[in-house]
């Protein structure tokens, strides 16, 4: 059967099981959009206000569903607007396939209208990318792109398709839907070493990351922790993999992690790192992190082994498979004394930090929101203090319910990502954002309104770029250089102007009444919460510090 390039793209999307695409049309993707129009029964397309929002939406869709997110954009500015979204997905290992149009092959390289070398631009922030100049290669490339995006450590892949290739025809052979690809087997010699290491340990600590979420290995991880009786801490990307209420889970470790998690880690003699890459935000001082203890690193990406932290034994492979192999081995429960030591730390005063409850504060709002959400409600965030508070105080239930920009720390990520998650799960979604982040990509509120998405936006307004302000307070003698925003935006009215519902929360006693109202709205709603400019994210281990440097008070 002869098809055009544009038709081939749509056919392969369907073949790959894609039913949702985010994007923004334009001159050089007209042909693909024309086919999308004809295939509207098979693929639903969401037009955003800006390509960045579409890229974040595809990312949020992928994180919350485990499927591959797809985004379309036109050439030139359309393509460059994807850059931050792709970099965000790359740093957090999210499977996204971006398809961009480009000018036809003959004018490429002549600085034609809306021409940009998007492959050159995105090379360092994609797992792989292509420019397809021959229509006969297109089917192979698109299929391969999906395979690469999903396989091993997932990541974004970009396909740039010149306009003449979209129009050109060639023979197309339909193929069956791809079957889940088995990942490489874990090496048996390493497995033996790992088992011995675990058996030799008296004080094992499990430190897990986003790899557990990506690999859908939550159950295996919990069984493993229970089997060896090891306390657990996570990186921020690992949050939601284990429910907060699990007795062995101490919370997030690292810069703004829980005291108990970082403290118990510092007392351990073995760190079992599962699906994590030892980001500097999570480890603090790298020398101290692995000093006096051994590290067993389980990760699918061989290049992560020993990259940031020296590793004693490593298991390279799918986290779920590796954990199953460990569960099948003769590892045993550690002594009661280690458990008791953990419990004692958990009962220390520093482990029970709360905010000043006499006033309206983020903790109270986040906990009140949690009372109104289900275990499977997705919570997205932007970046900054509100993100850390959400990570600290929101009690996660199910995996894939925390959608946040970890590696890149992208302010403006939240709005698009929450839309993607809301579309992907088809359920009410919560976005925690702030005055700083919200102003970056607030335009996407219009997208939420157009599609009447049940999105609850909690905007924590401290009239400042709070995280930077906190650093200025702590490390720059209160010199608040350009972090006091003094914006006069009336957020509730703004939401209404977009066609969403807007509410304002200024008094602690109104928390329940206002949130009840917000959660009753059919469609998007924004709750503007006024908080103090000097609210801090605590505890804090300063950059490069250790548990001994932890700051617990203002």
């Amino acid at each position: 059967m002869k098809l055009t390039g544009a038709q081939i793209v749509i056919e392969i999307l369907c073949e790959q099981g894609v039913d949702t695409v985010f994007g923004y049309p334009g001159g050089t993707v007209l042909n693909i959009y024309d086919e999308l129009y004809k295939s509207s029964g098979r693929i639903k397309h969401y037009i955003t206000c800006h390509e960045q929002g579409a890229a974040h939406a595809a990312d949020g869709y992928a994180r919350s569903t485990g499927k591959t997110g797809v985004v379309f954009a036109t050439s030139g500015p359309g393509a460059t607007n994807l850059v931050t979204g792709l970099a965000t997905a790359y740093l957090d290992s999210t499977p996204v396939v971006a398809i961009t149009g480009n000018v036809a092959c003959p004018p490429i390289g002549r600085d034609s209208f809306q021409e940009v070398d998007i492959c050159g631009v995105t090379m360092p922030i994609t797992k792989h990318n292509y420019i397809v100049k021959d229509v006969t290669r297109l089917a192979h490339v698109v299929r391969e792109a999906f395979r690469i995006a999903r396989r091993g450590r997932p990541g974004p892949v970009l396909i740039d398709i010149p306009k003449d290739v979209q129009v050109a025809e060639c023979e197309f052979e339909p193929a069956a839907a791809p079957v889940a690809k088995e990942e490489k087997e874990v090496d048996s010699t390493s497995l033996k070493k790992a088992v011995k290491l675990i058996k030799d340990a008296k004080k094992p600590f499990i430190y897990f990351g986003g790899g557990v979420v990506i690999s859908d290995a939550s159950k295996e991880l919990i069984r493993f922790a229970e089997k060896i009786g090891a306390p657990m801490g996570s990186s921020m990307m690992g949050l939601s993999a284990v429910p907060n209420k699990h007795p062995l889970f101490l919370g997030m470790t690292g810069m703004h992690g829980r005291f108990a998690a970082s403290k118990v880690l510092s007392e351990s003699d073995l760190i079992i790192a599962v699906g994590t890459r030892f980001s500097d935000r999570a480890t603090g001082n790298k020398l101290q992190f692995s000093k006096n203890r051994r590290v067993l690193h389980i990760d699918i990406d061989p290049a992560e082994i020993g990259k940031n932290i020296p590793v004693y034994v490593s298991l390279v492979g799918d986290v779920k498979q590796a954990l199953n192999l460990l569960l099948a081995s003769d590892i045993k429960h550690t002594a009661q004394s280690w458990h008791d030591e953990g419990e004692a730390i958990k009962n220390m005063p520093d482990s029970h930090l709360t905010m000043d409850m006499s006033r309206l504060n983020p903790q109270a709002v986040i906990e009140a929101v949690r009372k109104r959400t289900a275990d499977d409600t997705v919570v997205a965030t932007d970046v900054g203090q509100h993100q850390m508070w959400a990570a600290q105080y929101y009690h996660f239930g199910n995996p894939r319910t925390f959608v946040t920009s970890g590696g890149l720390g992208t302010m403006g990520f939240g709005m698009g990502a929450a839309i993607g998650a809301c579309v992907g799960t088809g359920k009410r979604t919560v976005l925690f954002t702030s005055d700083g982040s919200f102003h970056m990509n607030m335009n996407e509120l219009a997208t939420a309104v157009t599609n009447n998405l049940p999105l609850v936006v909690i905007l924590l307004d401290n009239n400042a770029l709070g995280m930077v302000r906190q650093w200025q307070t702590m490390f720059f003698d209160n010199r608040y250089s350009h972090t006091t925003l003094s914006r006069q935006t009336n957020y509730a009215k703004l939401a209404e102007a977009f066609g969403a519902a807007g509410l304002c929360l200024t008094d602690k006693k109104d928390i329940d009444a206002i949130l009840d109202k917000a959660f009753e709205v059919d469609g998007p709603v924004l709750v503007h919460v006024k908080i103090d400019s000097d609210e801090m994210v605590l505890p804090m281990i300063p950059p490069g510090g250790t548990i001994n440097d932890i700051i617990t008070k203002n």
Partner: protein
Amino acid sequence: MEKEKKDRFLLSMLVNNEAGVLTRISGLFARRGFNIASLSVGETENPDISRMTIMATGDDYFKEQVVLQLEKLQDVRIVELMDMDDTVMRELLLVKVRVDDQTSRSQILEAVSIFRAKVIDLTPVSLTVEITGETVKLSAFIEYLAPYGISELCRTGVTAIGRGNNILSKKYNKEEN
């Protein structure tokens, strides 16, 4: 200098012969802070595949990281850290020297013969020489010529091949896609 020599290593790679592959590889070196001392590349007996030889310096951590990161690139089929004792290495140098007097000319021609180099161009005021060999030999030749006045030179960078049964394409077992 001693340390640099000790930390010097050689990578041989088979990569897809496609546009942009060189950028992907050199870009990876640049953004991870890896420094390339020399790079040479050319098509192999299979026109779909190019062979690349990279000489770089770095400690064990660096070496291991660079190989692992290169292996992650889709267009890289195999990367091998070459065992210097089991590898034949060659580099080509073209060098042009100013010669305005007979004494210099005969001295240089003598060196050309001793170094087993070859004169490939001659004018009344210049002499261009081609020489192949290991990097150290080329450096020694350049050092010898320097006092006479080198007007320009170019080196191809090291290219290398394993001895005997040490065949890179035989080790190529990375699954197709």
